[in-house]
C-alpha cells in the first residue's frame, strides 16, 4: 500500500506539471489522470468512472489570459485515488464514497490555486538569479536555472498530491463513519446530475446560435443510431 501511495504521489508530480508548467499534453485531464490513479491502485474501472464524471464540467474552465482557473485535473486525480482506497473499507456505501470523494476533489482543485500562486512567487526568486547569469552571459547557468524550475514544479506536484492524499485519508473515513447509512439511498441522483452538468458545461462552450442546427443534427443522428442498434 505504501509503495502504491508513493507511486501515486510521483505520478501526481508528473500530472501536476502537465497542467501548465510543461507539455500541456492533456495527461492532467480527469479522463486520463483518474484511470492512471486507478491503474496504480488496481481499480482502473472506478478511476475511469470518476474521470468520466468530472471531465466535461472542467472543460468550462479556460486557462485564457489572466483567468484564474482551479486545478480540476489534479483534484480529480487525488479524488479518484481516495475513492479507490475508501471503496474497499466502505463497500456498502458506494454512492456516499463517490459523493464525498467528488466533493474532496473539488475542494482540492480550489485549494491548489493559492499554493500554485506561491510556487509562481518562488519563480520570481529564480528570475533574480537568472538576471545575474544574464549579466555574465552565462548560457549554461540560465539552462541550469530553468531545469531547477522544472524540478521545482515536479517536486511541488509530488508534495501537494501527497499532502492532499494524507488529508483525505485522515478526514474522509471519519466523515463516512458519522453519516447515517440511510443517506446512501438518497444519493442515487449523483451520477445523472453530474453527467447532465457536464453536458451543460460543454453546450455552453460549443453550442451557439449559429451551431444549433449542428447540435440538433448530432442529437438526431445519435438517437437514430441508438434506435436502430437498440443497444445501451
Amino acid at each position, binding site marked *: 500500500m505504501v509503495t502504491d501511495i508513493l507511486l501515486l504521489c510521483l505520478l501526481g508530480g508528473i500530472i501536476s*506539471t502537465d497542467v501548465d*508548467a510543461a507539455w*500541456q*499534453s*492533456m*495527461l492532467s*485531464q480527469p*479522463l*486520463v489522470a483518474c*484511470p492512471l490513479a486507478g491503474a496504480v491502485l488496481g481499480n*482502473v474501472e472506478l478511476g*475511469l468512472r470518476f*474521470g*468520466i464524471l468530472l*471531465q*466535461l*464540467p472542467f*472543460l468550462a474552465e*479556460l486557462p*485564457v489570459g489572466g483567468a484564474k482557473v*482551479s486545478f480540476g485535473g489534479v483534484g480529480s486525480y487525488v479524488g479518484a485515488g481516495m475513492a479507490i482506497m475508501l471503496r474497499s473499507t466502505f463497500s456498502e456505501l458506494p454512492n456516499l464514497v463517490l459523493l464525498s470523494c467528488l*466533493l474532496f476533489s473539488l475542494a482540492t482543485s480550489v485549494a491548489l490555486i493559492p499554493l500554485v500562486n506561491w510556487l*509562481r*512567487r518562488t*519563480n*520570481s526568486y*529564480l528570475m533574480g538569479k*537568472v538576471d545575474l547569469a*544574464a549579466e555574465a552571459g552565462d*548560457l549554461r547557468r*540560465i539552462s541550469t536555472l*530553468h531545469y531547477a524550475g522544472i524540478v521545482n514544479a515536479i517536486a511541488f506536484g509530488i508534495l501537494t498530491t501527497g499532502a492532499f492524499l494524507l488529508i483525505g485519508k485522515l478526514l474522509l473515513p471519519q466523515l463516512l463513519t458519522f453519516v447515517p447509512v440511510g*443517506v446512501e*439511498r*438518497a*444519493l442515487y*441522483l*449523483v451520477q*445523472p*446530475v*453530474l*453527467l*447532465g*452538468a457536464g*453536458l*451543460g*458545461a*460543454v*453546450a*455552453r462552450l*460549443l*453550442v*451557439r446560435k449559429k451551431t444549433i442546427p*449542428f*447540435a440538433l443534427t*448530432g442529437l438526431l*443522428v*445519435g*438517437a437514430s443510431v441508438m434506435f436502430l442498434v437498440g443497444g*445501451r
Partner: protein
Amino acid sequence: MRLGVFDLVRATVRSFYIQAVWSYERMLSLGFCFALIPFARKMLKSAKERRLFLKRNLTFFNTNPYMAGWLIGAVMRLEEEALTAEKPAFRQHERFKSRMSQSLAAIGDQLFWERLRPLTALLGWMVAMYWGVAGAVVFLVTYNIPHLFMRFKGVVTGYRLGFDITKEISLKKLHKRSHDLLRVGALATGLAFVVAARSAIVDDPIQIAGFVGGIVGMFILLKIKIPVPVALTVLLIACAVFGGLLGHAEM
C-alpha cells in the same frame, strides 16, 4: 553558419517547458530564452554577444504555449540576420515580438483551449462510455497530433520566414478553422447528449429530472460566472438534499 534540423528540434523540445518558470513580472520570458539557448550556443561565441542576446530575450514575454514556437523560430532567424547586418534593428525585433505574441496568444487560446480541447475531450468521453480506457487514448491522440504538429511547424516555419510569419499565420484562415471546429463540436455535443442520456437514465423519471436539472443548473451557474468547482458543489449538495427529501417522502 546556419541552424540545422537538429538545432530546430532541440529548440522545439525546449519549447515544451516554456511555462516551467512562469513569473508574475516577466511571465514566459525565461522559458522563451531557454528555447533559444541552442541557437546562442552555436551562433554567438563572445561573452559580450551572449550577454546582449540574453538581455534582449529575457524581457517580458507572454503568449499561448502551443503557439510560442512561431516566435522562437522567427526570433532565431532575426538574430541570425542581425549577426551579419551593419545596423541590426533590435528595436524593430522587440516590437514584432511583442505584437505577434499577443496575436498568437489570441489565436492559440481560441483554437486550442476553446475549440480543440472540448471537441477531442468529448470524443474521448463518448468512446470511454462504451469502450472504457480506449476513450482516454482517443482523447490523448486526437488532441496531441495537432498540438505537436503546431509546435514543430511553428519553430520550422518561424525560422524559415522570420518577419514574414505574419503572412503565413492568416487570422482569416485560422478563424475559419476555428468555426469548423465549433460546428463539429456542436455536432458531437448533440451525439454526447444521447450517449449520456442512455447511460444515466434507467427508466426512472426522477433520474431523468436529475439529468435535465444538471444540464440546466450547470448552464445557468456558468452563465452567471460561478466557478466550475463551486457550481459542481452546489449541484452535488442540491442533489443530495433533493434525493434525501424524496427518500424521506417515499418512506
